[in-house]
């Protein structure tokens, strides 16, 4: 028998439940840390100090957050159309190739033209790589979960070929492109604020962070305030009703996938144009997959995605510091902790909804 639906006030649904999930995840992660003979309290302190305790740590945290916002939004937009886009890695890879081609081919252009064009190229590359699975889903019924993951492999192979055989730096054994022209590089935040007299430590955080924040607002406006967003949500919630309303589910699936892929392209903007200043192999580093957890935890809402991206930024940066200070807590251990958070925030979410609902009902004197 199906259980009665669990209805929660909005604040509990969007804030309390995720907080309870994270708290539970931290308790379990603490037990894991305890089991290898380290103090969970000390580990937590190190993690938070390393990620938020200094301007340098904060810079790194926000740099990771930037990537997670892009990939999280990508998954979230597809979610709203009822699609599960797990091809963020591949879409970001193709976006990186497009951005690199733009930066290298259009090198004579001034920065004011080159940067926007390269960003658009990245978005177009990501959009293309997501549009094809969207097209196959809409016209052939090929499931996007299968096709997007296959496209990850194709993209991964394609970039190896291109970096080794076609785009690689002449005379170098490294699978990477030549450096982008100076004016194509996104300004680091510490330089930007340095111009206003603020002295900040040097971190990889760059202006693509601002682009990420703008994307949060833009996606919110798209999904909840625009006619297209209405159509996307209708298709996601009830495709039959969408057809009845004169909305073509096939068209919306293709459009939503393309937008999703374009957002995933933001990862390439941050990594290639903001940090590496050239295209290197494996620059996506699994961030595309983290986006799934970010979107799940953020319930597909841009505010939630922003907060979840920050949390994962803290985990990544704090985790790196932690494994540096405590050799017993390895990088892998930090991955385990991240996994526990994903497990609790995503998969076990229903558990806490039920719990929170009954606690709230008790509170109302029921």
């Amino acid at each position, binding site marked *: *028998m199906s*259980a*009665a639906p669990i*209805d929660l006030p909005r604040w509990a649904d969007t804030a309390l439940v995720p907080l309870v999930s994270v708290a539970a995840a931290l308790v379990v992660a603490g037990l894991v840390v305890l089991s290898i003979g380290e103090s969970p309290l000390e580990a937590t302190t190190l993690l938070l100090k390393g990620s938020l305790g200094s301007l340098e740590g904060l810079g790194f945290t926000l740099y990771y957050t930037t990537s997670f916002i892009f990939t999280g939004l990508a998954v979230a937009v597809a979610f709203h159309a009822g699609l599960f886009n797990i091809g963020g890695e591949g879409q970001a890879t193709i976006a990186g190739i497009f951005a690199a081609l733009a930066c290298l081919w259009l090198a004579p252009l001034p920065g004011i033209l080159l940067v926007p064009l390269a960003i658009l190229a990245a978005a177009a590359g990501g959009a293309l790589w997501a549009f094809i699975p969207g097209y196959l889903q809409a016209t052939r019924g090929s499931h996007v979960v299968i096709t997007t993951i296959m496209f990850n492999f194709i993209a991964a192979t394609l970039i190896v070929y291109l970096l080794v055989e076609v785009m690689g730096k002449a005379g170098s054994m490294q699978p990477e492109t030549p450096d982008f022209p100076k004016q194509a590089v996104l300004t680091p935040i510490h330089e930007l604020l340095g111009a206003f007299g603020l002295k900040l430590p040097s971190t990889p955080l760059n202006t693509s962070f601002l682009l990420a924040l703008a994307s949060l607002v833009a996606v919110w*406006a798209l999904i909840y*305030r*625009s*006619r*297209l967003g*209405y*159509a996307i*949500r*209708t298709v996601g*919630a*009830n495709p*039959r*009703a969408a*057809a*009845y*309303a*004169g*909305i073509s589910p096939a068209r919306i699936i293709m459009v939503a996938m393309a937008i999703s892929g374009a957002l995933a392209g933001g990862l390439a903007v941050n990594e290639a144009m903001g940090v590496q200043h050239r295209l290197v192999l494996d620059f996506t580093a699994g961030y595309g997959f983290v986006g799934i957890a970010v979107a799940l935890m953020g319930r597909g809402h841009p505010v939630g995605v922003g907060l979840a991206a920050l949390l994962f930024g803290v985990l990544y940066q704090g985790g790196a510091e932690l494994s540096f200070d405590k050799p017993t807590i390895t990088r892998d251990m930090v991955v385990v902790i991240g996994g526990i958070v994903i497990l609790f925030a995503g998969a076990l979410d229903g558990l806490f909804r039920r719990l929170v609902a009954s606690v709230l009902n008790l509170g109302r004197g*029921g």
Partner: protein
Amino acid sequence: MIETVPPAIELNGISKAFGPVKANKDVSLSVAAGSIHGIVGENGAGKSTLMSILYGFYEADAGEIRVRGELRRIRSSSDAIAAGIGMVHQHFMLVEPLSVVENVVLGAEGGALLKRGIGKARAELARLSQEYGLAIDPDAIVGTLSVGLQQRVEILKALYRGAQVLILDEPTAVLTPAEADQLFELLRALKAQGKTVILITHKLREIMAVTDRVSVMRRGEMVAHVETERTSPAELAEAMVGRRVLLRVEKAPRQRGAPVLEAAGLSVVDERGHETLRDASLTLHEGEIVGIAGVAGNGQSELLDVLAGLIQPARGVIRLGGQILNGADRNPANLRKLGLMHIPEDRLRTGLVTAFAAAENAILGYHDDPAFGRGPFLSPTLVEQHARAGMQDYDVRPVDPALKTAKFSGGNQQKIVLAREIERAPKVLLVGQPTRGVDIGAIEFIHRRLIALRDQGVAILLVSVELEEVMALSDRILALCGGQITGEREAVATDERDLGLLMAGVSERAA
């Protein structure tokens, strides 16, 4: 000392609130053992909530439940089953690819070895079938059975689990009149064997036909408990709605105008290659209601869908306002622009997005209208204002445009759809099952709106499984059987028997 038999079910002072909505207010109910007890009320009156509390889906905020005089705490459906309470839901909870006996043991398999449980169930099923005269093949695949038989499987499931009290939620909503009569026979047989039956319905005819006592709910409260013998449909309807209700539709003679929608030789072929609609031709004129009479599944849905542009015909011509519609024109968005609106048969699956707020559903199909925002954006204020006006106009309760559509009762959901389509001033209105799962007060309201629309000159095509409704509203009636139009009658010149013959396929052409 005389021992009195305690009531099978006794509810005392049950209250339940969902947020600000009080679904049940201090409700008490006593159901005598071995009786058939009806509960009537409009949708949203709290009948389903009350039964969900009794069956353990919800826990009451206050009040007590006694089963055969014993105080019980029912917190889940398994508690209810243990207390001897069984429920047959409006939407069956059956696994279609499994056989009857497999469905019956589902959830009560009795140990890890399925074979033993099945064997026991088979014997028990044979006994139950004999006891109640339920002819049913235990090895039949449930998906192949008719709806009436599937309902019997649900009843068998409850009896197999030892139910002494059987709750039936709107059991006849999906049945043909003949199947409904068979169900009533079965209920009487159950009663004769000492079982207690609680029948939730909004059809007063059924209450009068089969129950011993009836309780009336209105807006979360019990307003009357009466012996069925001592009441009348009019009295019950008044108690349900709180005012006098016209059970008949009053309408002026039609003022028929020019033909607006003409279809000639329409055929529809489904995915499996079956011709579900065959060579159907019809003409709708301004200012008339044309009803389609037919047993469900005889091509009505296909007729509506093909006219609304949701499916494409294999053959045939459709003219709207004299213009032939070619394939590219026949899509819902374009047809709406041409003034053809559609109230779909299944509001939950097609007509609404239940996860959306009421305001968002009030623009479904019209989200591109510039009136709702600027450029590519929708204005939440404009969308909400529009919804609020429509909800007030159509008496949707509560008037809360931000409330999720799933939380409205069936009648109120239907009014949201109706408001959306009618206020667009259609030239042609296709209406499917306008009052399915809708309470009496709302039925009256919907019927009056449709008649008013016809009087304004709109051409209406009405499809309904309720023959009474088709006969009461239509000016002209077409009968469908096996996807073919088997006859046409003026509504004043026909009766139920005559239409029944046409619906059964006794075609004029064949005769």
